[in-house]
């Protein structure tokens, strides 16, 4: 059975103080439905990817919450997998269609974060970590800073190399009208920005954001759909919650495992991927992803990124994070994994405008929960 994305839409990402979760959900879902040429009545199930609505807003039971808003009485589910909630929701949606239970479903990824105090958001996000890390006072910038230090020690990666990730992703975001940031930045600006968790500086970190994204997936041939992209692989792997229990710290084992499975399912290799949306919650995370996904040998990605090999318009083999990634486009955590799919659909359909990757035929989305406890990979084909 082949599964397709036939509709995809995202709201603007950013500090959306005038938008409610309900309004964002409507905008994303009805945008995706219009794209697919499907009425809401044609939707057999709703999968909502979200992490923080309970801890920050006191609102759980999100399946019913958004189904009510959308005028849907079909089965509705909330899927939580920290920052991989969106990707995990899509994986569950794909499985449900694969099983034959449903043939057309909607996946909504959504998060509303900026209505809450940054310290409350940071505390809530630590719900994705281990108890030891929480009680030890660790934060995600701190955990990724440790991963960065190890990478620097093992492979000679420099802070300037890390900064280059943010520079590239801000440039891509400057071409994306839905991105949170439209300003380009320089390596010097990243280096001068305030230190959050050494060696990570403010401009190495993705922001706190609001936003929603939705896709319609189906096993049916939808006549009214204007576009159709195949989900060639949907793979998930899981690792320990905390860093202390990991066998390796120079990469994310869950990403390596999920990637191997996804490539096998899709019948492609890393060399076949033209465009990738990867989880750059911190600049070091994109470096790790490049290596764990097999785009570059271990220890070689940072210098390649710094040399512009994954930047739009540089003629490289692959363009990474054309949306701007989490760093430039914004990171409403539950929405991110679904937004990555929306970006890939636009890229593979050749409608990504100024940030179009020429000849994009095979795309990969990489969505991580926590410091690598959950890794979700989707491969999409034109």
């Amino acid at each position, binding site marked *: 059975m082949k599964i397709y994305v036939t509709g995809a839409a995202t709201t603007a990402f950013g*500090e959306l103080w005038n938008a409610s979760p309900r309004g964002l959900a409507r905008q994303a879902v009805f945008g995706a439905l219009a794209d697919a040429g499907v009425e809401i009545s044609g939707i057999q199930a709703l999968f909502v990817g979200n992490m923080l609505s309970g801890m920050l807003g006191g609102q759980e039971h999100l399946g019913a919450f958004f189904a009510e808003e959308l005028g849907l009485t079909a089965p509705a589910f909330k899927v939580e997998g920290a920052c991989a909630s969106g990707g995990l929701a899509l994986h569950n949606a794909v499985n449900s269609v694969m099983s034959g239970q449903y043939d057309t479903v909607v996946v909504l990824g959504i998060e509303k974060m900026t209505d809450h105090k940054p310290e409350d958001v940071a505390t809530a996000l630590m719900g994705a970590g281990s108890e030891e890390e929480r009680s030890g006072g660790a934060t995600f910038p701190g955990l990724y800073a440790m991963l960065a230090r190890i990478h620097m020690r093992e492979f000679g990666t420099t802070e300037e190399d890390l900064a280059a990730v943010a520079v590239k992703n801000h440039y891509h975001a400057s071409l994306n009208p839905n991105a949170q940031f439209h300003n380009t930045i320089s390596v010097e600006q990243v280096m001068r920005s*305030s230190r959050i968790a050494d060696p990570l500086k403010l401009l190495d970190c993705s922001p706190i954001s609001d936003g929603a994204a939705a896709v319609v997936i189906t096993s049916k041939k939808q006549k009214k759909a204007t576009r159709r992209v195949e989900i060639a692989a949907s793979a998930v792997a899981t690792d320990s919650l905390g860093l202390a229990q990991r066998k390796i710290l120079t990469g994310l084992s869950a990403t390596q495992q999920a990637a191997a499975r996804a490539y096998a399912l899709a019948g492609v290799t890393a060399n076949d991927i033209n465009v990738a949306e990867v989880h750059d919650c911190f600049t070091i995370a994109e470096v790790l992803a490049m290596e764990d996904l097999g785009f570059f040998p271990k220890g070689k990605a940072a210098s390649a990124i710094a040399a512009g090999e994954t930047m739009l318009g540089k003629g490289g083999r692959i363009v990474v994070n054309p949306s701007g990634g989490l760093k430039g486009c914004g990171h409403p955590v539950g929405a991110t994994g679904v937004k990555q799919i929306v970006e890939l659909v636009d890229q593979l359909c050749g409608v990504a405008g100024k940030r179009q990757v020429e000849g994009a035929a095979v795309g990969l989305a990489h969505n991580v929960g926590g410091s690598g406890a959950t890794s979700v990979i989707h491969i999409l084909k034109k």
Partner: protein
Amino acid sequence: MIGIVSYGTYIPRNRIRIADIAMAWQKDAEEVSRSLGLTDKSVPGFDEDAATIAIEAASSCLAVSKQKPSDIDVLFVGSESHPYAVNPTSTIVGELLGVGTAYLAADMEFACKAGTAAIQAIAGLVAAGHARYGLAVGSDTAQGKPHDFLEYTAAAGGAAFLLGSEGVAARLTADTSYSSDTPDFWRRDGMRYPSHAGRFTGEPAYYQHVLGAANRLFEMTKTTAADYDYCVFHMPNGKFPREAAKRLGFSPAQLAPSLVVDYIGNAYSATAMLGLSAILDQAIPGQKIFMVSYGSGAGSDAFVWETTVELAQLQTARKNAKVLVSDQMHQKRYVDYIKFLKMTHKL
């Protein structure tokens, strides 16, 4: 003609360097100063509070005025740090000034714009013939929780404006307000320190209200920034007033004389009034001043003032008494972080 008949200001002498606060919390001092756009902030003395500061400013106002305390028919004190939750600051001030008993006293509270709310209310009472003269005071010893970003800016100061219809030194030619339920900063009863909503205090709060009130005043008066000699905005930090002025089309030169924040931080209810006082200290007759305050919660009051020939003698008297805003800004002694904690009763 309703307007400012006299004015007085008070800034405590104690200063703390923003760099010293940053150092206490192991922050990059240069970066903190740069991002907030200020270098020092004023610190109240151990025995100073919003009432004593209000009295200092009001006394200074009356000292250079032809009017006597008994000419005051209404006295409003605006503050977000009234010493008492119940028991008015305004009667303490009135008593110490010797206003007598035949006057209307009330306290105003509207975060950083309580003082300008007092100005507007008194201007209305004077215009209605209900009061001969009224004293509007903005006074604060602003609270910032240690390690909160507010700690770098929350300062102390006071300004008092005597409003009336005779002997006016700065005529009030137009005013308006812009208010909405926008909770960007708050302090519930019994709480020692205020809470704030981080970056939300910018665009949807400060800028929405300041620019909203300003544009409404432009429309009402059919004027643009080019029609004014000076402008003054509420100054929660060094950046916001500069950005607001820029967006409204004012030049740095029109704004510069008002920027007391660079040297003393944000004295909350007194801030915009201190900025206006600094302009009045140097304006010449016939000049127009555009003023917009901001109070969290949220609202802005906007005023157009036009100076008259009466201003010169006030300036001379203030200069002779060495109580110009510039005098008070630069008469200072630095305290270290530990002393700052003691002075503000945190240690």
